[in-house]
């Protein structure tokens, strides 16, 4: 009898909470917005955690200035150690316990994959995820998830085109991380090669749990390749660059953009070893003096001085954190309908937005059918101190 009563009470409670979800403004009051985030503050991908730190700093400062339209931002960022089940746990905590309005810039491809379905079932926005996998832009199937940066497959395609046009008699070696992220890049690269896939002489995977990629690099060198496509996250990218340098292997080295940070990848690898690396960029490299005079750089730099004075300026991810915070700020600032669905609609309605630390000529555009905010990049070469852009902006949509 008693059990029955408790069960009835539980049923009533679940109906009530279901009713609240229809109103859909969980986490949003007239004076505050609660935003959740997961970042790898520990584990193999912890080099990216500066993004979480930058976003925290951004909203902290914004709150001292009164927040957005009178609402202060409560930004809760939890550590998931880049482990998918841990992400599920932390995100459920954010959604169900903390009652966040939406999830913002959660980092990592395997980690976001694990919560993709959950977020869409719960109808909680998963905005501007920090991963370039191509699957975040499917508004019909996943209307609550949106990407941010240029997708990996597009970047891979750009590299393939460059190799075909600029290298005589290319023999290509590929190192890739054995997961969604690595395979997205790899597949984009293969698509870019078209019917010339036999130019690849060796293609080797690594796991994030591997201690080093030294043996892969030795094998890739032995394949006699003169082009090396390096699809790895900063820790492994640095190892690969260093090892190639040590064994005196000097191919045309294409490094994926996610590891292009001078301080997180190239400095640990050795700047001398990093000379002549090529990557595709869509953000201003903070170490590149040509941006020093631009308004965007100065805005970011002043913000850094004020909020993160001790941070390493060479790390491009501080710029990324700033950019994406700016984008969210813009979206929320111009949003009338402050509900979960309303915010999602506003995020899908950004037109020609310039961000301070994004390359000139690259604009943020979204629409109800386009959930890929940034889709252009430009190639860049490392001269031993900084990245130097060359060629023109390549827009994947054109």
């Amino acid at each position, binding site marked *: 009898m008693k059990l029955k009563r*408790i*069960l*009835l009470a*539980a*049923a009533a409670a*679940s109906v009530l909470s279901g009713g609240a979800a229809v109103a859909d403004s969980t986490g949003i009051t007239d004076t505050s917005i609660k935003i959740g985030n997961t970042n790898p503050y*520990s584990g193999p991908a912890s080099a990216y955690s500066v993004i979480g730190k930058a976003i925290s700093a951004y909203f902290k400062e914004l709150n001292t200035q009164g927040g957005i339209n009178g609402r202060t931002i409560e930004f809760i960022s939890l*550590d998931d150690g880049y*482990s*998918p*089940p841990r992400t*599920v*746990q932390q995100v*459920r*905590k954010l959604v*169900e*316990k903390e009652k966040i309005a939406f999830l913002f810039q959660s980092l990592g491809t*395997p980690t976001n*994959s*694990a919560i*993709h*379905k*959950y977020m869409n079932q719960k109808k909680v926005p998963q905005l501007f995820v920090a991963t370039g996998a191509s699957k975040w832009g499917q508004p019909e199937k996943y209307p609550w998830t949106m990407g941010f940066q240029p997708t990996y497959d597009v970047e891979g395609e750009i590299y393939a085109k460059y190799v075909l046009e600029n290298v005589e008699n290319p023999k290509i070696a590929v190192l890739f991380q*054995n*997961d*969604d992220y*690595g*395979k997205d890049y790899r597949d984009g690269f293969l698509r870019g090669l078209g019917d010339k896939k036999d130019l690849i002489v060796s293609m080797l995977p690594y*796991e*994030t*749990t591997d201690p080093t990629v030294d043996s892969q690099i030795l094998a890739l060198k032995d394949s006699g390749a003169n082009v090396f496509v390096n699809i790895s996250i900063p820790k492994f990218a640095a190892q690969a660059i260093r090892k190639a340098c040590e064994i005196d292997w000097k191919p045309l080295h294409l490094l994926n953009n996610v590891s292009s940070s001078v301080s997180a990848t190239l400095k640990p690898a050795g700047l001398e070893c990093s000379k002549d690396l090529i990557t595709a960029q869509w953000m201003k490299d903070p170490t590149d003096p040509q941006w020093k005079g631009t308004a965007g750089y100065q805005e970011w730099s002043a913000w850094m001085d004020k909020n993160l004075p001790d941070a390493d300026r060479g790390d491009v991810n501080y710029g990324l954190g700033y950019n994406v915070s700016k984008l969210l700020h813009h979206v929320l600032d111009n949003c009338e309908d402050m509900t979960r669905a309303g915010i999602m609609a506003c995020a899908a309605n950004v037109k020609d937005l310039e961000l301070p630390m994004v390359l000139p000529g690259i604009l943020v555009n979204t629409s109800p059918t386009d959930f890929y905010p940034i889709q252009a990049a430009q190639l860049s070469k490392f001269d031993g101190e900084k990245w130097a852009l060359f060629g023109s902006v390549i827009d994947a949509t054109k």
Partner: protein
Amino acid sequence: MIRPNALTPKLVLSFGALVVLGCIVPLIVEDYDSYQITVAFSYGIAILGLNILTGYNGQFSIGHSAFFAIGAYTAAIMITHFGWHPYATLPFVAIAAFMVGFLFGFPALRLEGLYLALATFALAVATPQILKVDALEEWTGGVQGLFFDKPDPIMGGMSIDQSLYYVTWIVFVVLMALTWALLHSRSGRAIMAIRDNPIAASTMGINTALYKTTTFGISAMFAGLGGAFFAFANAFVSPDTFNFFIAVYLLVGSVVGGIVSIPGALLGGLFYVFGQEYAEEVSNLSELIPPPWVTFGIFLILMMYFAPFGIWGLIERGMARLKRPSSS
């Protein structure tokens, strides 16, 4: 502590109280907590298997993440490719994991102690990569893994998380009871005799090879069932989920809970899930407290120093001490 408790009215009563307590929990906590405890139970089931193998049979394994993965993937493949109801997959999960464990038990026969640990380690590190092999991608979903829906509530008025909690708890309780029965049987005595002195055991006429492989199979079966519930709770499986760390944590949970005990598995599972979380919270309390993993490490060292038989060992010792003055 070395042998399971005898069947006394007190044991039955306290076990009954535990079962009831477990049933009340989801009524008073939120769905999120039920989910977390469900995950703890799923680890607990796997740890129970490890306790049988290591604690009672004396064989080492730091590769139980592999059997955990086999259980999870067997369930996930049957659900996504063949449209089975999640709970209907459980018997097949048990059979599949038992078979793999039993077969792995054969080479394990030739290996003792550290060498066996190394062989199981190899299994653990190989598992994520095997799951990613392109040839199997059609079945395993490759690096993406497989996604499915959580099982529907078994009763109206229950949330999905509550329902899964109850099913997991019931299975866990039944497995604990079965383990107790197994260890109290003739076979159980043989299993423990092999641990205590393998040569004497075989002289007594115990077929050590058969018992060791069967124990390995049973242990793997438990790990597989745990893995299946883990997959249900998270509604997805992916190769990187089942990395070597899972195997290590299972072992840590087993030792912390009490490796030569049955209730220790429950404590170990809870420790696995909540230990890390509290380490995080504790280290956030003050700047002076070291970062989460250091805190966690310090706790483990203290634990081994003050409670070498795990939390359950500590509880038993405490109870024994309480009893002494009254009986004397």
